[in-house]
């Protein structure tokens, strides 16, 4: 049996991702993995899979003529492929027919599935019943784009790529109800993305005390997601810059510090003065002052921020941050055991 996915339109950026590379930051290997791991988890849960099984992360931030599209091929035409989609609420069609959302569904040989731009959010996750026939790199299928390794050829998918699927029992026909379990239906369009405004809780970071004014300023104004937004990180600009002040630059910071460890969610203050939130692909060390960190419970939201969205920060203590994390992960316990979910989140 030969089965593969043929990429017909690449979207803004589509990569193979799972839970990412863990415990390798001392070798300067970024975490990578799904930028919104909870959405990947939901898609996998819908198919009854481990939450960290590799899937496709499809980024569609703007109105794009062609979106992302792929075609399922299998030389044994009775062998179908089950899929589930979660994350940003993209309009999805199969062979041109609109899909109802919140469903797992079945692809037959030759079926074309297409994603359009979502009204809000920017990353959609597609889980599959079959395994990608890709080499595991450092225990992961995640794509390390800057390093050029992992995933499919170490890069984002391009039109014409063919990803071979491993023959397995899971790829075989599964009959039955396409409707997701009731308790999931309310969650599948991720409840954390309902509009273009986001509230992110933050804690202090190592240089917060030295940069007290800049740290306070994070919470006293609204921020706008700039065009520099991706898996590496997100640059913010003030949402409402003072009118008389539009041509002056943000205060120039000349603080000299030695490079030190940084993490996904770390908010850096580069010399241009615009806060930069590191993402899952962010580098492992940095020399800019660290003035905050988005808490673990909220970090999955970073994967859904798109240019033009607005952000409000709320400063909390590390203890409260831990409580929020506990509440959220135990809120998921009917779907996934906390000790499993925490490995990818």
């Amino acid at each position, binding site marked *: 049996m030969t089965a593969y996915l043929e990429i017909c339109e690449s979207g803004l950026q589509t990569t193979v991702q799972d839970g990412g590379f863990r*415990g*390798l*930051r*001392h*070798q*300067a*290997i*970024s975490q990578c993995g799904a930028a919104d791991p909870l959405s990947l988890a939901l898609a996998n849960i819908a198919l009854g899979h481990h939450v960290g099984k590799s899937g496709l992360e499809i980024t569609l931030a703007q109105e794009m003529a062609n979106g992302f599209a792929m075609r399922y091929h299998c030389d044994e035409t009775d062998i179908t492929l089950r899929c589930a989609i979660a994350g940003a609420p993209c309009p999805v069609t199969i062979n041109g027919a609109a899909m109802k959302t919140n469903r797992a569904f079945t692809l037959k040989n030759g079926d074309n599935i297409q994603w359009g731009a979502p009204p809000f959010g920017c990353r959609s996750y597609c889980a599959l019943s079959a395994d990608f026939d890709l*080499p595991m*790199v*450092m225990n992961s299928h995640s794509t*390390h784009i*800057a*390093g*050029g*390794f*992992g995933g499919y050829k170490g890069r984002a998918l391009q039109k014409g790529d063919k990803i071979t699927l491993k023959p397995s029992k899971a790829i075989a026909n599964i009959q039955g109800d396409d409707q997701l379990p009731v308790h999931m239906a309310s969650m599948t369009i991720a409840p954390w993305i309902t509009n273009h405004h986001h509230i992110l809780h933050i*804690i*202090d*970071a*190592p240089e*917060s*005390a030295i940069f007290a004014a800049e740290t306070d300023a994070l919470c006293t104004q609204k921020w706008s997601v700039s065009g520099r937004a991706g898996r590496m990180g997100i640059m913010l600009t003030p949402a409402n810059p003072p009118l008389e002040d539009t041509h002056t630059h943000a205060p120039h910071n000349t603080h000299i510090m*030695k*490079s*030190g*460890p940084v*993490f996904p969610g770390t908010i850096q203050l580069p010399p241009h003065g615009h806060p930069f939130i590191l993402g899952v692909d962010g*580098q*492992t*060390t*940095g020399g800019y002052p660290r003035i905050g*960190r988005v*808490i*673990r419970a909220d970090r999955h939201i970073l994967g859904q921020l798109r240019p033009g969205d607005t952000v409000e920060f709320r400063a909390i*203590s*590390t*203890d409260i*941050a*831990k409580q929020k*994390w506990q509440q959220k992960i135990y809120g998921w316990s009917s779907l996934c055991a*906390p*000790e499993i979910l*925490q490995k990818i989140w």
Partner: protein
Amino acid sequence: MDDSHSKISDDITIYIDEDHVLISGLEQHHIDMAMAMGKETREWQEIIAGLDSIALTYTPDDISHDEDLLSKAQHFLEQITPENHNSIDRPAAITLDICYDDVFAPDLPIVAEHLGLSPSAFPNWHKTQKFHVAMLGFLPGFAYLSMADCPEMRTATPIKRLANPRNHVAAGSFGLLSGQGGIYALSGPGGWPIIGRIAQKLFDPHASPAALLQHGQQILLNPVTMAEFDGIRQGEKP
């Protein structure tokens, strides 16, 4: 300063995050000791070096209280203080073949000039310097090197990053700044002045560990010609 920061001494601060502890204000010997211990530690998930700090990561469920974390971090700090240094297990020195051909060393003439050397004298000077891996950061396997003091560096015009960083610096490129070196394990962007290229493969995602260079390792340099460089690269291909 809020309760996430604890000042331990004039220099050293412990900062507690949700999933790691950062100890800052450290000397190189503390960090080298911490990284040497990192291979055996079961106390922490991972130990990550900065140039004057270390991060100790943990799973939030394993350690629930900040007081426990602070005392654990303090205990770790005691273990990496100089009186315990005799137990340090440094990685063996590694010899790297380096080619200084013009093609691989676009910034060698200007760096040599800063150091008061002729371009032809530069390779001999460079290979006798003492480099240690001080941190892996920036890009996978990228090695920041500390450099022992030398008379040329003391009197040199400061060697700064390029005003216009390059979009593409080849894997193996050796960058040199005042008192600091950097080796690109993979190709990537960057503003380091490049003075040569290492022949060995420095990062292999299918090897374990993927990064050839390890923290604390001494780097010995062996100058090679372009032909020898090509031979070494060819030999590595399966």
